[in-house]
Every structure is written in structure tokens, then in C-alpha cells.
């Protein structure tokens, strides 16, 4: 054999289709040129434990699917979106561009469902205690991804430049101004001046379509690589099982085949939601006018919104401190709760988690109703 080519490894020979078949020929053709078998073997190792809580393992993939939808619909929207005349261009997308309103609605709904899925994903890994050593870094990258996604939501919200998006952004950044020392400086950088203007779009637009998505893709790659290297975390109850009772699905040849139809289902849901509840466009932002009555942030910012509301006036800093400490508490979780199986400290963390979920749900509903 010509030494320019690499031999097909024996393990590969055992698993490839027979050489007489077309797929067997093609795969051997590729493997002789590209010595990637170790890489394939590396990915083939990934397996997903099967137990009664296995359904939660699909959430990360669903969130990733929504992100893919965001990229595709986002690129389509960029074709017609014009940061120089934002409102007019979005109006054109909604009114004139074929299926423009639909694509915009899908982008909107997919964003919301992506954040919702991430919340569920985060809390499912939290309660399955997947963050414990040695998986701290996976947890931290996950938190970073969640933060980036929320920032994507916030920055994308301004882009249509209608009444709602303008005032929501103005209020959101003005809360940031209240952070001692660095607050006004950060607010100024984000706004590009003392108030939200079209200048702000000049900052939010590249942030929304370039910086944040690239950061997300990079960190997501790391997040997935860590799971690949360390394997999917197993809950204590599953670990305690005797070896012969532990059942797994191979990730690439089995689990994914059960996951993809769920993605397709989500696609159907996205189109249905966009058909039934299309995203509207309010009148063009008028910075001189008063904020529309009862203006509220999107549901995923309802917790900080309510938190600041219940501490009025001079006490407002209490709400800000709580909201500032919450992300830090999430970061600290894997360093507090470390032991397998769960000890007293672990149970405390789990209870604290339940409390956070209950308060978050209650605040969101409260904010939505009030």
C-alpha cells in the first residue's frame, strides 16, 4: 500500500460496513485519507444513563436546537433589518417582506423558549447535582451560557425600536446606573450617552448579532467538550445500582435518534405559536413621550423587576444586593456542595434551590399579574 495513505485501524475494520457495499467503500476511502478514527472513537464513547429521570437529559439539546433556530432566523432578519432606520425596517419586515412577520415571530418565540428551556436545564442539573466535582467547570460554563442568552434577549429587545423596546431598555439600563461607582460608567458605555438613542442601537446591534453569538458558540463548544470528556453525570441513585443493572443509551447512535424528533416537534410548536400569537410592533419609539402605562419587562426579567419593586425608595439597594448576590450564589454552589453521596450540606443546598425556584416562579407570576 502506498505510504501516503494511512491504514484503516483494526477496530474500525470490525465496525465498518463490508467493503463490498457502497457505504463501506466510501468510509474506507475517507479513513485512508483522514486519520480521524481516534476522534470518532472518542465521540462514540459518550453514553447517557437510563433511569426514571432520563427525560431531563434532552433539555440541553433542545436549548441548542432553539439556538440554531435563532441563528437561522436571525440571519434572515438581518437581510432586511437596518440599524439606521430600525423601526421602519422592522415595519417593512412585518408588513411587506413575504413571511417576514412569521420569521420575526419565530425568532421571538424561539428566544423565549430557549430561555425557558435553559431555566429547566439549569435546575434539572442542579437538582440532579451534576455540578459536583469534577464537573464544576461544566456548571460554570453553563451559567455563563445562561447569562449570555439573557443578554442576547435584552439586546435584541431594543432593536425594533418601538415604544415598548425603547422604554424597557431605558428602564433596564437606568437600574444599572444605580450600581455604586461603576454603574453610571457602565450605563454610559451601553447607551452611548446619557440617554437611550439610536446610538444605543449602534452598540446593541453588533453585540446582538456578532459578539454575543460568537461568545456563546465558543463557550458552548467548551461546555459540550467537557461533557464529552467527563461523561454524562449520573445521579446518586443510579451510581448506587449494581453494574449489571445500569443501562445506558449510546449518545450518537441511540440517544440522538430519540432527541431529533423532539427538536422537530419544537419546530412545529414554534410555527404554531407564531401563527397564533404573532409578535406585534408598537408605534415607533418617541423618547419625548411618557412611558406607556403598565410597561413591564419580558417574563425572564420579572424576578429582578419585582425584587426592585418591593424595596421602594431608599431601600432599593436591598433588592439590588439580593439580585447581585444571586448569580454569585449559583457560581458558589459546586464549591459548597461537594460530596457524593449527598451529605447534610448537600441537602441544605437542595432546599435552598427549591426556595429559589418557588420564589422565582411566585415573583414571575406576581409581576405578570400586577
Amino acid at each position: 500500500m502506498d505510504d501516503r495513505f494511512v491504514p484503516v485501524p483494526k477496530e474500525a475494520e470490525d465496525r465498518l460496513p463490508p467493503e463490498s457495499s457502497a457505504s463501506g467503500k466510501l468510509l474506507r476511502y475517507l479513513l485512508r485519507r483522514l486519520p480521524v478514527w481516534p476522534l470518532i472513537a472518542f465521540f462514540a464513547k459518550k453514553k447517557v444513563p437510563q433511569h426514571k429521570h432520563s427525560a431531563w437529559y434532552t433539555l440541553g439539546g433542545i436549548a441548542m436546537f432553539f439556538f440554531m433556530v435563532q441563528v437561522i432566523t436571525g440571519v434572515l432578519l438581518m437581510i432586511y433589518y437596518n440599524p439606521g432606520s430600525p423601526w421602519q425596517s422592522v415595519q417593512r419586515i412585518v408588513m411587506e417582506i413575504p413571511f417576514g412577520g412569521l420569521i420575526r415571530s419565530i425568532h421571538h418565540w424561539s428566544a423565549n423558549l430557549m430561555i425557558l428551556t435553559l431555566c429547566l436545564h439549569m435546575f434539572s442539573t442542579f437538582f440532579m447535582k451534576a455540578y459536583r466535582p469534577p464537573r464544576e467547570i461544566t456548571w460554570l460554563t453553563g451559567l455563563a451560557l445562561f447569562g449570555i442568552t439573557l443578554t442576547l434577549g435584552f439586546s435584541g429587545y431594543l432593536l425594533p425600536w418601538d415604544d415598548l423596546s425603547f422604554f424597557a431598555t431605558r428602564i433596564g439600563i437606568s437600574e444599572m446606573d444605580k450600581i455604586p461607582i461603576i454603574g453610571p460608567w457602565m450605563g454610559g458605555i451601553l447607551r452611548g450617552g446619557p440617554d437611550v438613542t439610536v446610538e444605543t442601537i449602534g452598540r446593541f446591534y453588533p453585540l446582538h448579532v456578532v459578539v454575543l453569538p460568537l461568545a456563546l458558540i465558543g463557550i458552548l463548544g467548551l461546555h459540550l467538550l467537557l461533557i464529552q470528556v467527563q461523561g454524562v453525570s449520573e445521579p446518586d441513585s443510579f451510581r448506587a445500582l449494581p453494574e449489571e443493572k445500569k443501562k445506558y443509551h449510546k449518545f450518537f447512535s441511540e440517544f440522538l435518534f430519540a432527541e431529533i424528533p423532539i427538536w422537530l416537534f419544537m419546530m412545529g410548536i414554534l410555527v404554531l405559536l407564531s401563527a397564533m400569537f404573532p409578535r406585534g410592533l408598537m408605534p415607533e419609539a418617541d423618547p419625548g413621550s411618557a412611558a406607556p402605562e403598565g410597561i413591564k419587562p419580558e417574563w425572564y426579567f420579572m424576578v429582578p423587576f419585582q425584587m426592585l419593586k418591593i424595596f421602594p425608595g431608599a431601600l432599593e439597594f436591598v433588592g439590588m444586593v439580593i439580585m447581585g448576590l444571586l448569580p454569585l450564589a449559583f457560581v458558589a454552589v459546586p464549591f459548597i456542595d461537594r460530596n457524593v453521596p449527598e451529605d447534610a450540606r448537600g441537602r441544605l443546598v437542595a432546599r435552598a434551590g427549591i426556595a429559589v425556584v418557588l420564589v422565582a416562579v411566585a415573583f414571575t407570576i406576581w409581576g405578570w399579574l400586577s
Partner: protein
Amino acid sequence: MNYPVWDLAFLGSGLVVAIIATIHIFISHFAIGGGIFLWVAEWWSGREPDGAKIREWLHKYATFFLIYTTVFGAMTGVGIWFAIQLASAEGTSLLIHQFVFVWASEWVLFLGELTVLYLYYYGWKTNSPRLQLWLAGLYALISWGSLFAINGILTFMLTPGDWNTQNLDIAAGFFNPGFWPSLFIRTLVMILLGGLGGMVIASRIENEELKEKTIRFCVKFVIPAAILTPFFAVWYWTVLPASASKLIEGGVVGVGGGRMEAITAYFLTAVVAGAMIVLASTVVYLKPKALTMMTAIAIFLIGMTGITGAEFVREMARKPFVIHGVLYSNSLWKNKAADPDYLAQPYLEKAKWHPSEMPSSLERGEWLFRLQCISCHTRDGYRAMKKRTASWSGNFGVKWFERMHEQGVMPPFEGSLEDRAALTEYLLSLHGKKENAADILKAVEAELNAEKTKMILQEAGRVPDAIPPEIPDNPEAVKDVPADENGMDVQKDNKEVLQ
């Protein structure tokens, strides 16, 4: 107008009908498709060496099938009757009177369906395999017969064909142009659902070899049906009334401004769902062993989203009618609407169900709203009038009611000029605006130029020379009239809420 009204806040009666009917369709289509599936699966289990194991799975399927279809199917079926007679008593009455014999057949078929299903299910252990096969076949046939009957009435509402209020030709109404394409589409969708239901039950099979075999058997129902359905949808498309296909193609510019893309989007929902089902089933066919119950349910639910989309298209395409070209959604008969004198008569004097004494025009306006608007609209919920009238002025409302039917999705307004002003007064009051109907009328008279005023007054049956001499000639005042080159655009400027 001859019946009491169902003033349902937030949802509105139309949406309640849609919700109940859509759920009923989920169930009834599975009830028939599952019957066909059971029959074929019975036959298949008799030919396979491990037929006994297949029949274990089939028994689970039959249990799920029996509970799901008989309990929930019957409940929602009766629910439709409750809801439609409240939403459109006039339309329900027409359907009953025209199709008495069909309803009777439907009832007999339904009874037969239940009887045979019970014989089949409860005879599982005692009946011979041959008898079971016959019972399953009989069930499939009878239940499909019930589709045949109801399909004629359902399609009649969108495409009445040669039926009209003079000939009352039942055969023409039943075997209307939409009958056959709709029958084929529904039969295919049923077969598809039967296969998807089979996948849900098969996802729990422990024996891997049996699981693989059974799931592949189910997929063979799903993919052909999903691929064939669009062809019959195209056929259906060709028999739709021109106004209906125009609605689906372009959407219309709605009263609140913005392109009403909903109907197009619903159409897409059905198309996307079909494509997703084909893809998902292909994935399942490739790796049947990997199928989990959650995934199988997800695929089943894609079918539900598609059905929801398709049924909404069919319902919306009928706008502004309950029976296309015959009876408007506000219970106005089309043949009566052709007479301008009839339309312009004071409405409440003709309508039966309202208080006899209504001194204020605001109250009259609210009753006009109840009698003519709420079969489709609500005050501030689904298809909210509050949102749609946000930018209205008094004289705009009066003019709008005169011409709203010209844009194709609204029925003509039935009532006098005073009625129009009273209804406008009521709608403006939803925003807290207090404009008396008499003032609105004065404003209409004062603001229109002489020619326009003359036209409106003539149509209202008033004497044209009653125009006060002091009316300023002000063509600017009519810029609000709801018409552009399409007669559709009522958006005054870009500042309106788009939806």
C-alpha cells in the same frame, strides 16, 4: 337575531367552539384511524410467528384507544353541540333542518361503533382470532362511515356548491365540491394518527426485536399518509371559493393595521407539521430501538399541531360566513343582505332578544354589539374590539360600519344610521371615551363635505335637502374613510399597533 346571545368574555364563543372542536378532531380522527390500524394490525399479528406477543402490544393499544376515544370523544362531541348552538343558533338550525337524515345516520353509526368496539375489546380473550379480525374490520368500516356522514355537513359549510335556499337540494349540499378531497385528506390524517398512536404504545415494548418490528410496522402507516395528504390538499384548494383562497394566499389588511398573516401562518403550520412528521418518522424508522415514549408522544403532538393549523385555515377561510355565501357570521342571511332597504332598517326592532326598554343610545349600542359582533369578537380578549378601535373617532366608526363588508372578511352591518352611531358610541366607551351617539351623528353631518353627507343621508333614507347650509366644504375630513385601492387598508398612519 332571533335567539338569545352568549356573551362570553375574553375567549368569545367562536374560539370556544374552535377549542372544543379541535380537541374533538384530535380524538375522533384517532378513533377512526386507530380502528383501521387495529384491523390491519390484527391481520398482521395472525401472519407473524410471534403473533401472540404482537397481540399483547395490540391489547395495550386497544385499552388506550377505548378510553381515549369513547370517553373524551363523546364528551367533546356533545360539547360541540352545546357550543355551536350558542355561538350561531341560526347556522345550527339550518344544519339540523337540512341534514336530518344524515344526523340520524350519524347517530346510528355512532351507536354501532360503540357496540362493536365493546364486543371487540371485551371479547379479547374469549373470541376466536377470526371473529376478532371481523369485529375490528367492522369497527373500522362503521367508524369510517361516521366520517363519511359528518364530512358532508362539514364541507357543506365552506363549499355549499349547488345547494341554495331556493332548491334546498340535500344531495347537492351533501356531495358538495369539497366533499371528496376533504374525505381523502381526513382519511389519510386518520391513518397517520393511527400509526403515531401505535408508536407511542410500541415505545414501551421491552423485547428489542419485537419493538423494532412493531415500530417499523407503525411507521409504514405514517410516512405514506403524510406524503399523500398535500396532494389532496391541493385538490381541496382548487374547489375553494375564490374569496377563500384569496384570504389564504395573501392574508388581508386587518382593522388594527398590519398584515393579517394568521391564515397564511396556520396553513404553514400544517405544512411544517407534515414535513416534521415525515422527518421524525424517518429517524424513528432508522433506529426504532432508540424510540422513547417521550419522543413518540412528541411526534404524536406534531400531528396535533398540524391538525390545529389545518382546521383553523378551514374555519378562517369561511370568513365572513357561517355557511359560505348563504349565512353571515352575524346571523344575517345573504339573500336578505342584498336588499339595502332591509339592511338599513332599525336593527333592534327586528331582533327579538334584548330588553324592551332601552332609553340610552349607549345601552342600544351594547345590545347591537352583543347581537352582531360577539359571535366573532370580544371586548378585550380574542379578536378584541378594544384593540381594533383604539384609533377610532366617532365619524370614522359610522363610516366604517357602512363599508366594512367591502374588504371581504366582515359581514355587512345590519341597522340604521342611528344604530351605527350607537354602536360606535359603545365601542368608544370601551376606551373611556364619552361620545354620545347624537353628537357622533352631528359630527358626521358637520364634518363631511356636502356630497358625502348627501350620500350617507340618502342611504339612511333621509331627505337629502336636509343638509344644513353652514357645513364647511372640507374634503380633508373624509381622509379616514376605510379604503385604498384594494378597499382594504384602514390604517391611517404608521403609528398604529401592528398585529
